[in-house]
């Protein structure tokens, strides 16, 4: 009996230990204290002194890690520095490296299994593997980015090659997987993925649906070519924002309100486009407006927040060459945002329209093999994409088709080909390496003049006191009216892009009279100054308005003031809409339509100082009212059913359009189609306030209770890459709200991914932070060590030693010597 019991126990335990059970990883390998997950505690901190042989190095590389976990790399050549960088990033972020690259290459299923099949198929249908393979194969090994990517890959693979079992990152243990070798082409995939994050959004098809529903004039007013509030990136000489409001604002066209009235249509739950989903800020102040007389620069890129961070901080020093510090994406050699001894820089996303659709005529609606161009049938490039699983099994096979423009996709019953500037980039990431070498603003501007995508607003300052900003990237030139917010006829080559905007036409300013430059994803240039087409439907410029307002008001800016600006709790959006809400309540009162609820709501809102501090107890009411507003105003817009059974509009106008419409108080748009009465602006704003108050009472309790505290009502969330709650930082109370300079949108998953202030004085000084920490190892103190300070809006002083001896010994945590392998 005991024999049988022992056999059963041994068999079951051996199976669970080797294979796992259900979602549990193989318990033997997982719990094994010598090399299993517990061993991560042993590898959480680096040895105080260590030496490693690294293949490919031409000379020894010394790496000093400081108390913030930032490696300072002292190398004899750029190639050695990139090689060391690959090694260090792999050491700290190996799983992240692989995961984000697989997301772009459509091979997530090989790591995560069938759950990732649809994501992989989508990545392949977008043409990412097609573009990366084609682009990489076209380059020879002398190209700068190829040399850098190869050196970087060697470094990554050196780490993987000598990876001890105890050092295997936690995520691989959970997934029962091993790291894949890193390929130079993976750096290309990384930049494709960044292009997807920053420049894929295109609402052309949705805008066409709106046009079909409400008419061309109305659709153009709702999603206009130019922002109705002009505070451009390139200064336009004005001392305040300019309102370019349409008068009259075009009403809905085809569908009269009368015809809709009484229609049995449930009022849709409108979910506005997440505010500032990838909004970013940067600004630079000339010496004449700073207290110390040195130029100051702030970088504040906002991205989806993750643990570990999307950024990796590093300092690369090459004897007689680059000496640059800042952040880069794991997988990208060099520094993307940061500073060297002479120059500091940062980016925001331009949000330009760089992706176009072409309706193609194909030979077979189901399985096209050819497309018609200028009366001639052309063969489609066919690419069979096989998505494989963890054991190499086939999970899906798709044929992806390409015209000369790009990938062909089926949408709305027609075949559309896409052209996208991100696919035009021949040497993605190379320009960042050139920026690392710049000594002056001019060299910096020259360094990325050929940059393709995704278009960025780059600010720069140098130690000579010069400042500049330029929106850089390839902006397509299109035939006809030049606009990209339409589906063009693919059967004619006359529809194709005719070239790209010359550099001289890029939005640009250098050393302006106003003494500062700022960008916050607003329309980059005043159309009166530069009529070229850059895009449509720009983000509401609330952050730009606030930023310019604060910078105008301070003629003696300090680094501390720059830091405080990054988490400024004020809101131009609140300044614009609170008076409308309060005015509407008063108007209702005067018209005899007031009630206790509205009076109470208005009184509470009037108490608000229009800031989003964590302790504020009135911002929550304003946000509830603003959330109620779109459903009341935009009920004429076409909707589509969501998977949760609710109807949502296919596209909602920006709130700046709402403000523009507010100048036309009796416009038909204000009328709610479900009610027999004809509403005007004030009735709608009053109703929004009333509803917002009711929702706030329902969700947060009475106004005098703690539930209205902003920190309790609104949170930031930073998820682990695999969205494992236990490894995430959730429900973080942060200062800021929708459209403040530190925007905290609805879902709370985006935010300031890197905050940096640099003073380009005689000795360059920098302060910076990102949420999370340098290490991807959850046992490390550097997994989350920066979070509390980031949450509080604080910055760390950044060490930038000119040589190893300059790094204070008390702040050195580990020294690593990388030696050439003979």
């Amino acid at each position, binding site marked *: 009996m005991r024999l049988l019991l022992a056999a059963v*126990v041994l068999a079951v335990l051996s199976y669970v230990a080797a294979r796992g059970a259900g979602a549990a990883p193989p318990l*033997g390998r997982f719990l094994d204290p010598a090399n299993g997950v517990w061993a991560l*505690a042993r590898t*959480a901190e680096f040895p105080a002194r260590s030496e490693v042989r690294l293949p490919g190095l031409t000379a020894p590389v010394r790496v000093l890690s400081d108390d913030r976990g930032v490696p300072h790399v002292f190398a004899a050549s750029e190639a050695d520095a990139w090689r060391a960088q690959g090694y260090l990033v792999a050491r700290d972020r190996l799983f992240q490296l692989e995961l984000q690259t697989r997301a772009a290459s459509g091979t997530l299923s090989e790591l995560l299994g069938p759950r990732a099949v649809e994501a992989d198929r989508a990545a392949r249908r977008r043409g990412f593997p097609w573009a990366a393979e084609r682009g990489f194969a076209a380059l020879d090994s002398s190209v700068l980015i190829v040399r850098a990517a190869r050196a970087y890959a060697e470094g990554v693979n050196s780490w993987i090659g000598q990876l001890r079992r105890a050092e295997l990152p936690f995520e691989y243990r959970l997934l029962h997987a091993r790291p894949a070798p890193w390929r130079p082409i993976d750096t290309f995939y990384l930049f494709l993925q960044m292009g997807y994050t920053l420049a894929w959004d295109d609402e052309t098809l949705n805008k066409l649906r709106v046009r079909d529903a409400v008419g061309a004039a109305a659709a153009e007013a709702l999603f206009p070519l130019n922002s109705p509030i002009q505070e451009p990136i390139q200064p336009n000489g004005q001392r305040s924002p300019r309102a370019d409001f349409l008068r009259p604002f075009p009403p809905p066209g085809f569908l009269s309100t009368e015809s809709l009235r009484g229609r049995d249509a449930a009022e849709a739950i409108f979910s506005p486009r997440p505010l500032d989903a990838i909004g970013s800020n940067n600004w630079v102040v000339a010496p004449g407006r700073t207290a110390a007389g040195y130029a100051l620069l702030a970088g504040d890129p906002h991205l989806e927040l993750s643990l570990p961070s999307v950024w990796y901080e590093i300092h690369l020093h090459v004897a007689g060459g680059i000496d640059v510090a800042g952040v880069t994406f794991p997988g990208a050699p060099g520094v993307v945002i940061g500073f060297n001894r002479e120059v500091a820089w940062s980016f925001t996303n331009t949000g330009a329209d760089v992706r176009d659709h072409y309706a193609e005529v194909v030979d077979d609606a189901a399985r096209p093999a050819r497309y018609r161009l200028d009366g001639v049938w052309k063969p489609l490039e066919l690419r069979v994409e096989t998505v494989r699983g963890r054991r190499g099994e086939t999970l899906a096979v798709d044929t992806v088709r390409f015209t000369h423009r790009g990938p062909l996709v089926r949408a709305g019953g027609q075949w559309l080909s896409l052209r996208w500037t991100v696919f035009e980039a021949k040497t993605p990431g190379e320009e960042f390496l050139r920026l690392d070498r710049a000594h002056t603003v001019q060299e910096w501007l020259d360094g990325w003049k050929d940059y393709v995508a995704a278009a960025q607003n780059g600010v720069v300052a140098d130690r000579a006191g010069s400042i500049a900003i330029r929106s850089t990237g390839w902006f397509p030139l299109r035939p006809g009216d030049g606009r990209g917010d339409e589906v063009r006829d693919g059967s004619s080559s006359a529809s194709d892009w005719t070239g790209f905007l010359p550099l001289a036409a890029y939005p640009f300013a250098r050393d302006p009279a106003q003494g500062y430059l700022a960008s916050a994803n607003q329309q980059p240039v005043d159309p009166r100054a530069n009529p070229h087409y850059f895009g449509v439907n720009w983000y509401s410029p609330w952050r730009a308005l606030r930023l310019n307002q604060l910078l105008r008001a301070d003629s003696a800016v300090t680094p501390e003031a720059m830091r405080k600006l990054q988490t400024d709790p004020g809101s131009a959006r609140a300044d614009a809409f609170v008076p409308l809400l309060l005015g509407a309540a008063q108007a209702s009162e005067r018209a005899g339509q007031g009630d206790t609820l509205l009076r109470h709501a208005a009184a509470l809102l009037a108490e608000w100082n229009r800031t989003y501090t964590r302790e504020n107890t009135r911002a929550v009411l304003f946000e509830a009212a603003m959330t109620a507003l779109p459903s009341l105003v935009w009920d004429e817009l076409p909707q589509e059913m969501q998977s949760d059974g609710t109807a949502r509009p296919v596209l909602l106008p920006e709130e700046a359009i709402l403000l523009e419409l507010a100048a036309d108080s009796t416009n038909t748009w204000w009328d709610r189609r479900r009610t027999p009465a004809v509403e005007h602006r004030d009735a709608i704003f009053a109703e929004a306030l009333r509803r917002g108050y009711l929702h706030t009472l329902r969700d947060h309790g009475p106004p005098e209770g703690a539930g209205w505290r902003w920190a309790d009502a609104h949170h930031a969330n930073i998820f682990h890459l695999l969205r494992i709650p236990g490894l995430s930082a959730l429900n973080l109370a942060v200062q800021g709200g929708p459209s403040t300079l530190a925007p905290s949108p609805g879902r709370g998953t985006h935010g300031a991914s890197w905050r940096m202030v640099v003073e380009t004085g005689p000795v360059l000084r920098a302060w910076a932070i990102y949420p999370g920490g340098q290490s991807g190892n959850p046992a490390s103190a550097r997994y989350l060590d920066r979070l509390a300070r980031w949450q509080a809006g604080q910055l760390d002083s950044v060490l930038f030693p000119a040589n190893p001896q300059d790094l204070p010994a008390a702040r050195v945590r580990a020294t690593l010597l990388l030696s050439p392998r003979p």
Partner: protein
Amino acid sequence: MRSGLGFLALLAAFVLASWLGWWAIPAVAALWGFWRPAVWRPLLSAALAAALAWGIWLLVDFLADPGAFARLGRRLGAVLPLPLPGLLLLSLLLPALLAWSAAALVCGLANVRLTPEGDNR
């Protein structure tokens, strides 16, 4: 005395074998079960020694960097459907059961095969 030394030898074997991987625990225990040294409750000793061996590994890591160990334990406890004490217990129970079952199985099989010849080691 001899029994104690035998136990210590087994413990040392488990500690060292753990470096090879979890599978070394049942392998060493199987040898132990086959050998059946004259120690107190040899099968229970195998289980205890295996648990102790893994416990020593964990203790060494804890003493080397208590902060890292605590952070890891806290986060593992949040990730896995087990609180930290349960996870630690599982980390000791797994080798114990593997060792006991392997030793008992081999010991039993050896008895079945050897007893007819009168071997009663």
